[in-house]
């Protein structure tokens, strides 16, 4: 009986609120129609620009990444059944900044040494690592024996070359080196007028 009276009271209340509710729903329907038209044209524009109107907003993408990281780094077998830990590159930037190694006395006194790795040569065990052959060492080849007739011809040729007029060779400028460096790669054909190998 009490419930029936409650329901009757609610019915009376709803009857009084009904016009307001209808007004609100009509207002929302009209605003919704305008919004629908706006989003329709927006989706068309997005479609032709190669995108689409998604429910997923940038905030959702960010949240998804964070949750995935948490799941991947968790020890809980329910969350991370494979037990795969994220790679070192995937760790957040905060971890990289937290350098826990204590500085040495030299670093405290003279500041951080940037060229430590370059200055100290790596220790290589010669018994294990095969030494590479030295390629830079110049070994002069023995001169071939020249026959007397050939030697005479060569001498004659040398004397002709001495008598010949000097060939003009332009001086190198600092711009020429820069130009040649730039153009050498791009130059596909035509006459090579660079003096790089001269």
């Amino acid at each position, binding site marked *: 009986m009490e419930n029936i009276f409650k*329901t*009757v009271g609610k*019915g009376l*209340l*709803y009857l009084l609120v009904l016009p307001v509710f209808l007004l609100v*729903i009509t207002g929302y*329907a009209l605003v919704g129609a305008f919004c*629908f038209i706006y989003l329709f044209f927006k989706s068309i524009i997005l479609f032709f620009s190669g995108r689409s109107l998604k429910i997923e*907003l940038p905030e959702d993408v960010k949240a998804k990444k964070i949750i995935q990281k948490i799941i991947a780094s968790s020890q809980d077998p329910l969350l991370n059944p494979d037990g795969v830990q994220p790679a070192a590159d995937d760790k957040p930037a905060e971890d990289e900044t937290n350098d826990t190694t204590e500085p040495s006395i030299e670093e405290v006194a003279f500041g951080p040494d940037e060229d430590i790795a370059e200055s100290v040569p790596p220790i290589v065990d010669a018994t294990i690592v095969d030494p590479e052959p030295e390629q830079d060492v110049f070994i002069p080849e023995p001169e071939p024996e020249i026959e007397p007739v050939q030697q005479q011809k060569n001498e004659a040729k040398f004397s002709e070359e001495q008598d010949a007029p000097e060939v003009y060779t332009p001086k190198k400028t600092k711009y020429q080196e820069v130009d040649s460096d730039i153009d050498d790669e791009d130059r596909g054909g035509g006459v090579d007028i660079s003096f790089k190998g001269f």
Partner: protein
Amino acid sequence: MFPALLKLTETDKRVIIALLFIIILLLVIIGAIGYLIVRVMKWQGKGLDNCVSDVLYARVITEKKEFVKYARKKNWIIFYKAARIPVIIMLVSGLILLIRNLIYHDFTYNVFNSFDGFGSLLFIWDFSGIISTGGGELTFKLPTLVSSPHFHLHAWGAYLFILGMAVGGFWYLWCVQALIARDLRIKKLSESIFDKKLDQFNQNQQLMSSLIPGQVLPPGVMPAPGVAPAPTPTPAPQTAPAPDNKEKEKKK
């Protein structure tokens, strides 16, 4: 005069009681419908939780204003996605009516007329002249039936148009109701998620606890920073007293 008016016959009393019952029944029905609508709106509003929960769990959004802006944006996109089908249904039904008018070259066509419109599927009564006061007496007459339901082939455009508009319209209203429900849910969540309650907080009590280290704080009051929490009183173990003490007492 009034006692004369209050003299009701038995029939009048019965009629009044019957009317009261009808009114109560109507109010109960309205109350039940309203209750159903409220329940449905709550269910529709909870659909929003699924869409915004990740952002809140990951703490991407930590402000009320930001959350409201984000959730409303999402709410409109959900509405757009949901309202596409009813809008298409309504557009198609409108197109059908246009095609029908183009075929019959009749642009003054009334879709609700009882001859070749949607009215041909309805019962139509003539209510004029049901109450007459002729001869000083009030007489009631039953309404006369004008048209009974019948299928008219030329009314196919009206049938499809009304059907499509009704289905699409109600579907669209359902989407609008969901939109309102989600909006109400956004308002409620924005107030509850970022709420900072001070009901259990007492600054003076916190200060006193820092001055008296051994004081046990009431439930809900946090100890001051830097002060160790008071040890919880544990019941003493019920063991028999040492026999040496008893003997000493006896000797005394």
